[in-house]
């Protein structure tokens, strides 16, 4: 089900025959695109589905019936009755010729090249090149491993001058840092003195570069790509919900790369999102449960901390009523977790003082959203909103200061601290009888916690996020949580069990999602299984049904 080419969707359809197979294509769309969309592989370097046509690499040459010379498929518009041969001897010859010229000066340092294993030049050389070199001339020397910007490394010798990176900075980031300088066989990619490749989307050039010429500094010489286990997920950096692949090796995240979703992020992601995964394996990550006694915080087993949290919640509620309990969550949990948390708050604790703390940062008119949490919208839709006559965040803070709220349960205290400000957050902590923190990252409040529950990161979870326009997208676990750490949803399930006196209901995200679909109006009609790789916007589903 491809949603691509929204822009040409209104154009009429035409019939094109490629290698004897008749396919339907959009009139005027590049022949190469039509072939690729139909699973017909035509080798190409300079063509990229989200960049303008360049026609510079000549790798995509095909034979078109009625034309004497080979034509480049990327710059041939689909027209009715076009008959194309991608497998003739002449085409094979042309490809071999292009490969030979590209390799004349190529350093062939695949053994130390990060691109190896996902390199077009390697793959096409194997498939379409000739397996021996005819030239013995010395290869052109160029810059090796130079930073072309703070987050991208450049290897001039490997560049095949396809100009994808130039078009990216011209057309997508609109920052223009890269250009082809020089002429002929002395051409090279370069920047202007004093203006390095430095924009919020700069590392995308490493993705568009078909060879190992532009590389992510973060991933440079880190891991052979064929050792990566890749998991389809969604970026947790902001509410845009860019689709990604998490590349992990032995339980450690090595990189995030964008995954194409034309309805969300096309093929791009921002640098902050791409490089923001460090907290998952950080040395200072909160891995231990702690409970405070007369001697201060003590490390305890997680179930002991959960029992202590349940006891504190029960005691405050019995002694001072549900109004003495406040819950503030970050926007980083899954819908399924929020649904359980909202149920726990509303039904088990009957507290109505529930709200979110979502830090605001910079946003732009492309991908980056100002709210720096992936799932604030989902949280609210799952019921993480102040109940009737309940208190919102400001109300909760005031009530703590007035001594009315005695127990505050903060899930994600780093975000809480960012929103409330360190000084006030500390003052709030000082006013409380009980401060429960459920955290992945430490904050200024960490050592003030009465009870600390270690949380899990998005990379460890299955579930869904709802992005800022309401698109529901799946995340999948790429690594395991540290030893002894439960998923936040499992903590909510255990607390619900402890407080209600019933056996805890196991937390199974896919069945919670089905409960959500049955209970939350906007999610009616969604099924966990049908979300697929690209997610669904409930609004579209409803339109489709109606």
């Amino acid at each position, binding site marked *: 089900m491809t949603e691509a080419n929204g822009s040409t969707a209104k154009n009429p359809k035409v019939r094109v025959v490629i290698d004897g197979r008749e396919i339907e294509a959009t009139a005027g769309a590049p022949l190469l695109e039509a072939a690729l969309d139909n699973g017909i592989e035509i080798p190409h370097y300079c063509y990229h589905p989200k960049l303008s046509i360049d026609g510079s690499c000549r790798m995509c040459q095909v034979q078109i019936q009625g034309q004497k010379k080979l034509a480049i498929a990327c710059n041939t518009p689909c027209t009715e009755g076009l008959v194309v041969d991608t497998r003739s001897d002449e085409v094979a010859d042309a490809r071999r010729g292009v490969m030979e010229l590209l390799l004349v000066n190529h350093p062939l340092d695949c053994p130390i090249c990060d691109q190896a294993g996902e390199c077009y030049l390697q793959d096409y050389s194997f498939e379409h090149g000739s397996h021996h070199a005819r030239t013995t001339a010395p290869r052109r020397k160029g810059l090796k491993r130079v930073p072309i910007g703070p987050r991208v490394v450049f290897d001039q010798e490997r560049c095949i001058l396809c100009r994808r990176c130039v078009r990216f900075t011209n057309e997508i980031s609109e920052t*223009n840092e890269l250009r082809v*300088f*020089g002429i*002929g066989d002395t051409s090279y990619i370069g920047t*202007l*003195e004093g*203006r390095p490749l430095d924009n919020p989307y700069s590392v995308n050039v490493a993705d568009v570069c078909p060879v190992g010429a532009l590389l992510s500094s973060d991933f440079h010489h880190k891991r052979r790509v064929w050792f990566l286990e890749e998991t389809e997920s969604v970026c947790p950096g902001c509410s845009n919900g860019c689709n990604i692949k998490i590349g992990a090796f032995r339980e450690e995240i090595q990189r995030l790369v964008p995954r194409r979703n034309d309805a969300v992020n096309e093929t791009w992601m921002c640098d902050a999102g791409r490089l923001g995964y460090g907290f998952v394996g950080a040395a200072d990550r909160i891995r231990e449960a702690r409970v405070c006694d007369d001697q201060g915080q003590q490390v305890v087993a997680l179930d002991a901390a959960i029992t202590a949290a349940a006891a504190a919640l029960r005691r405050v509620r019995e002694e001072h009523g549900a109004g003495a309990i406040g819950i503030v969550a970050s926007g980083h949990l899954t819908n399924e977790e929020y649904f359980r948390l909202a149920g726990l708050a509303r039904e088990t604790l009957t507290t109505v003082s529930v709200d979110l703390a979502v830090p605001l940062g910079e946003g732009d008119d492309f991908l980056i959203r100002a709210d720096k949490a992936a799932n604030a919208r989902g949280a609210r839709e799952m019921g993480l909103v102040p109940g009737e006559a309940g208190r919102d965040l400001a109300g909760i803070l005031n009530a703590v200061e007035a001594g009315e709220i005695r127990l505050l349960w903060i899930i994600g205290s780093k975000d809480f601290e960012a929103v409330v400000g360190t000084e006030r957050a500390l003052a709030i902590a000082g006013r409380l009888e009980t401060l429960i923190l459920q955290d992945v990252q430490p904050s200024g409040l960490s050592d003030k916690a009465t009870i600390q529950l270690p949380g899990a990161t998005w990379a460890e979870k299955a579930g869904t996020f709802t992005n800022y326009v309401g698109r529901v997208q799946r995340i999948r676990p790429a690594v395991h949580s540290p030893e002894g750490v439960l998923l936040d949803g499992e903590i909510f399930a255990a607390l619900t069990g402890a407080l209600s006196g019933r056996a805890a209901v196991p937390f199974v995200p896919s069945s919670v999602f089905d409960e959500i679909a049955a209970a939350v109006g906007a999610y009616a009609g969604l099924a966990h299984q049908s979300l697929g790789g690209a997610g669904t916007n409930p609004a579209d589903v409803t339109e489709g049904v109606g």
Partner: protein
Amino acid sequence: MPLSHELENRIRAEFPKYPEKRAVLLTALHFVQEEQGGWVAPDCILAIAGLLEIDPIDVKEVVSFYHMFHDHAVGQSHLQVCTNLSCSMRGARGLVRGLEEILGVRPGEMTPGGEFSVEEVQCLGSCGSAPVVQVNNEPFLENVALADLKSLVAGLQTRRRAAVGE
């Protein structure tokens, strides 16, 4: 101030001749190179871009593309040896090596006093008289033979001395 007022005005005077300011780029580069020591320095690139209201990287791209513009300092006599196909087939590589021996510099380098520099260039458009050498913007030297190089360099040195009145 990388460009003098006079130079700026000279460039501005070209604007009315074209529909767009950016069209003046080549002319502006010629003026700047003439008056600013034979090359276009980075701050001149910025100044030209400012005048023509274009991105400085566009200016640098053009400077680097054409062999008659230089983004680095070149010698007073800048020897451009065409090493494209026809000239290479007719001995251009030997000329480059010959100049290397006589002047002690390799393509892209300049003699210590700044008198000579050598550069390999793309086809000069005179393939019929290959191999071709061009000194600065002077008429082509055609069918150049290895044996001609010594007298060519000596001639340029004599001319240079005469010019400075030694």
